[in-house]
């Protein structure tokens, strides 16, 4: 994974963060990500993120569950082992409804959670870079990726003017890797190659 440089602006309030996101985007800077301690509604739109398709995935998993349940039960009771239970029909659809419903829900829920973890790259022992330890507490953190053309001082001043309380430069590895949060982050200790090299 590439080691990259970021300018990180910490905001105290989401009301300041919103116009700042807009200003930064208008100025043409590339926002790597914004980290918030709770979901800030509308921030995804402000950042220009696309809507998630997780719902669609959930629907597909759901109908997979429905089909699995119905086809399995019908096959078992009509073909594999057509047992006579109290003279009841071999294909009692009303009696199949509860299990069909439960499997629909089960497949959908489990599938969606796994997809969510996959898309967000979340799993036990996954360790990601934390720009500010208080981004999960009360700070709203905007990380802007630096390119060769970025004037760092200008960007810092720009962020301060936009309302960031504390602006500084950080080096971080993008993407993810496995790691433990109790160990020191090795990226900070690595010498960083100059950006223009």
């Amino acid at each position, binding site marked *: 994974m590439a080691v990259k440089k970021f300018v990180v602006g910490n905001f105290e309030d989401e009301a300041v963060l919103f116009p700042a996101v807009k200003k930064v985007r208008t100025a043409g800077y590339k926002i790597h990500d*914004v*980290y918030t301690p709770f979901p800030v509604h509308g921030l995804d739109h402000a950042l220009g993120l696309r809507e998630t398709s997780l719902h669609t995935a*959930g629907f597909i998993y759901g109908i997979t569950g429905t089909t699995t349940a119905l086809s399995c039960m019908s096959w078992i009771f009509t073909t594999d082992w057509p047992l006579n239970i109290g003279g009841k029909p071999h294909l009692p659809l009303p009696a199949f409804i509860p299990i069909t419903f439960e499997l629909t829900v089960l497949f959908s829920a489990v599938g969606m959670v796994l997809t969510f973890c996959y898309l967000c790259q979340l799993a036990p022992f996954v360790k990601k870079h934390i720009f500010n330890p*208080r981004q*999960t507490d009360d700070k709203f953190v905007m990380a802007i990726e630096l390119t060769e053309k970025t004037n760092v001082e200008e960007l810092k001043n720009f962020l301060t003017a936009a309302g960031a309380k504390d602006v500084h430069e950080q080096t971080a590895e993008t993407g993810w890797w496995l790691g433990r*949060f109790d160990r020191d982050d090795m990226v900070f200790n690595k010498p960083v190659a100059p950006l223009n090299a």
Partner: protein
Amino acid sequence: MHLKYESTLREPLVDGVKDYHQVTEDIIRPIEAKPGKLWYVGFFISLTLLGFGAFSVFWQIYFGVGVWNLNKTIGWGWDITNFVWWVGIGHAGTLISAILLLFRQGWRTGVNRAAEAMTIFAVMCAGQFPIIHMGRVWMAFFILPYPNTRGPVWVNFNSPLLWDVFAISTYFTVSLLFWYSGLLPDFATIRDRAKTKLRKLLYGIASFGWTGSTKHWQRHEALSLVLAGLSTPLVLSVHTIVSFDFATSVIPGWHTTIFPPYFVAGAIFSGFAMVQTLLIITRKILNLEDYITIGHMEAMNKVIVLTGSIVGCAYLTELFMAWYSAVPYEFDTFYKFRAAGPLGWSYWIMMTCNVISPQVFWFTKMRRNVMVTFVMSIIVNIGMWFERFVIICTSLYRDYIPSSWSYYTPSWPEVGFYLGTFGLFFTCYFLFAKYFPVIAVAEIKHVLKTSGENYKNEMVKYEEESAEKFAHDVAHAH
């Protein structure tokens, strides 16, 4: 023209003037501190109960189901009573977290985490009863449909008991996923505040590497909403299916179409009562009165009086139908054996606890009184336990053949098993209260600005200013 819209402000969901950091401090501090004496006392009592329960279960498995006082007439006793009761307890958790999320009820944020935990522990307790009741517990995997080596022998998909297997296991899985996905951001908060290496490691593993990225939050919200949408019919289906265990049979007192809605209402009724019991203790011990407010308790008490009245209505409907249908067996079950037979005392305990006493919650003063709520929550739980006991035992103890009529009292392993599940439930809850954030930190922060004390003060100030401005404008217009 004097047209001014006046809105009465809602009660704040978070008392006291707080900022985001203060919320984190208040909720996470108990996790970082050493547990108090009360915690140890409670935890060890729970462990003792759990131990006794384990011994009772061992005794039953070793000697067989015969050590229970079940007989040919009463084949289901305390075990299934407790199963249905525990499943019912679990329902409030999903109701609070899923249905109230869909209905955009802000007050759920203070209580949802603990209620969901309660759901999971209650379902864990419930599931044991039918499994242990099988007798040969090591054969429990026979209830799962899978291709096997015993020839093409499959489970009976027509049986409500098999529907239960699917319903309860799906319910448990989905509740667990819902609960845990909500916990990820809060675990990350604890991880990032952690001072010790061990805490950082454990919460680092538990938080799955959550960072609070906007994209992650967007997906997380989508996930929660769809899981809520899935859990809402799920929670209704689970107790409906549990009620089918009875309703699809031909036993007088069981064979009724009112069972599904009546069981669901009863489940929510007892579930909310258990949430009240737990949260009143939790808020007191962990000093969370600002987050679990009297307003929260009042809202839950309103649900209790509503569902309690639905349950009461169902009891009366059953009595009416027993008379109106003119089926002698039904009539005898309801009027002779339930209300007046040898087990009639249980029927009247049920009526008093479930129908009469919750009516005190029509009075605002009672709804907002912590002591009354606490006592009522326990009464309701006792009442709902007796409801299940009445349905099962008073329908079975007088069957179609008078020669097989009998009476039923539990044996010590039955009581021990029930106490053991209390032990399990409270052991889990104590561990939860110590190591997990009992209130959803991120969700509280989300509603803080729009329904905290700060917001309320600002709104009052704004209203006063605009009223002054209005008076000023009116005075100058003339």
